[in-house]
C-alpha cells in the first residue's frame, strides 16, 4: 500500500497540469527556494480532506487556486487527485487502485470524488479510517513546525497515542 500517483491541476503554483509518479521506498524532492516543494505537501493534505486553510498557509480557500503569473491568467478551479496502490487491500474496496480527488471553484463550491464517483467528506474519512491518514498529525512534519509540535500541551499530545491505539 503506497501512494502511486499524484495529479495536481491549478493548485497554488501548479498552473500547468502536473503528474507525479511515486514508488515504494523513499522519494526526495529538491529545488530552489519558492519553486513549489511545500505546495506539493499542501496539495496532499488538502486532497485528504484538510479543512483549515491556515494549515495550508492560506487565509481563504481561494488562495489555494492558481492566481496567475506573468505567463497566465488566474484559473477558475483547483483539483488534486491521489491514486493509491491497494494490492494489500488496506482500503476496504475490491479494487487494485483507489483514487481520492478534491476540486474547489472560485465560487467556493467544493466537491470530493472516490474512484471517480462524487462523494462526501464523510465518505473520504471513512475510507481513510485504518490507514493512518485519517489524522495526519503524526504522518506529516510540516516545514518549520517541529518547535510548535513539541510545545503542544501534554493533554493535546495524548491524541497521537489514541489515534494509534
Amino acid at each position: 500500500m503506497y501512494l502511486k500517483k499524484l495529479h495536481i491541476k491549478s493548485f497554488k503554483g501548479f498552473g500547468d497540469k502536473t503528474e507525479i509518479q511515486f514508488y515504494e521506498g523513499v522519494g526526495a524532492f529538491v529545488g530552489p527556494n519558492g519553486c513549489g516543494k511545500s505546495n506539493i505537501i499542501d496539495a496532499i493534505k488538502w486532497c485528504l480532506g484538510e479543512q483549515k486553510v491556515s494549515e495550508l498557509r492560506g487565509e481563504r480557500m481561494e488562495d489555494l487556486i492558481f492566481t496567475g503569473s506573468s505567463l497566465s491568467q488566474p484559473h477558475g478551479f483547483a483539483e488534486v487527485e491521489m491514486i493509491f496502490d491497494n494490492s494489500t487491500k488496506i482500503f476496504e474496496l475490491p479494487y487494485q487502485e483507489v483514487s481520492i480527488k478534491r476540486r474547489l471553484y472560485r465560487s467556493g463550491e467544493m466537491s470530493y470524488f472516490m474512484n471517480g464517483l462524487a462523494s462526501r467528506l464523510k465518505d473520504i474519512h471513512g475510507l481513510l479510517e485504518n490507514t493512518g491518514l485519517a489524522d495526519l498529525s503524526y504522518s506529516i512534519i510540516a516545514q518549520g513546525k517541529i518547535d510548535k509540535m513539541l510545545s503542544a500541551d501534554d493533554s493535546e499530545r495524548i491524541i497521537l497515542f489514541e489515534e494509534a491505539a
Partner: protein
Amino acid sequence: SKKLLTKTFKVINKNFAQITATLFPQGRGHLELEYSRNPAERKAKIFVQPQGKQVKKLNLFSGGEKTLIMLALMFAIFMTRPSIFCILDEADAALDDENLSQFVKLIEKFKGKSQVLLISHNRKTFQSFEYIYGVTMRGGISKVFSLKVDE
C-alpha cells in the same frame, strides 16, 4: 478503551526508548501516560536526558535536540502503527553534520515499513535515496521532473 490505550502506549514507549538511545548516544528517553476517565484530562509526557545533562524541561533543549526528540516520537508511533506514508518537509534543517547522518540512518531503517516522502536542501540527505524529484518554477509556474537514480 483504557486497556487498548495503555497497551499501545507501552509499546510506543519501548520504541521511543530504543530510538532515543540511538539518537542521543549514552542518553535515554521515555514517555509517561496519565490516564483519566475524562479524555480531556489524559496526558502524555515526554522525558529525555542526553548524556551528562540534568535539564528536564523540553523547551530548554536546543533546536536540533527538539528535532531529534520529535523524530523519535514520530517513528516510535510509526513502528507500532505504520501509516501509508510519512512526509518530512525540511525536518533536517536544524541538524548538525553528525545528526544529519543519524537522520538518514533512521529513515533507511523505516523505509521498509512505509513509503517516505521528504524535502531537503542538504545534499547529504537527498543523495542517500533512490528516487529524486527536481522541482523548478518558471514564469511563476511550478514543474516537477523525476530524476530516478539507479540503485
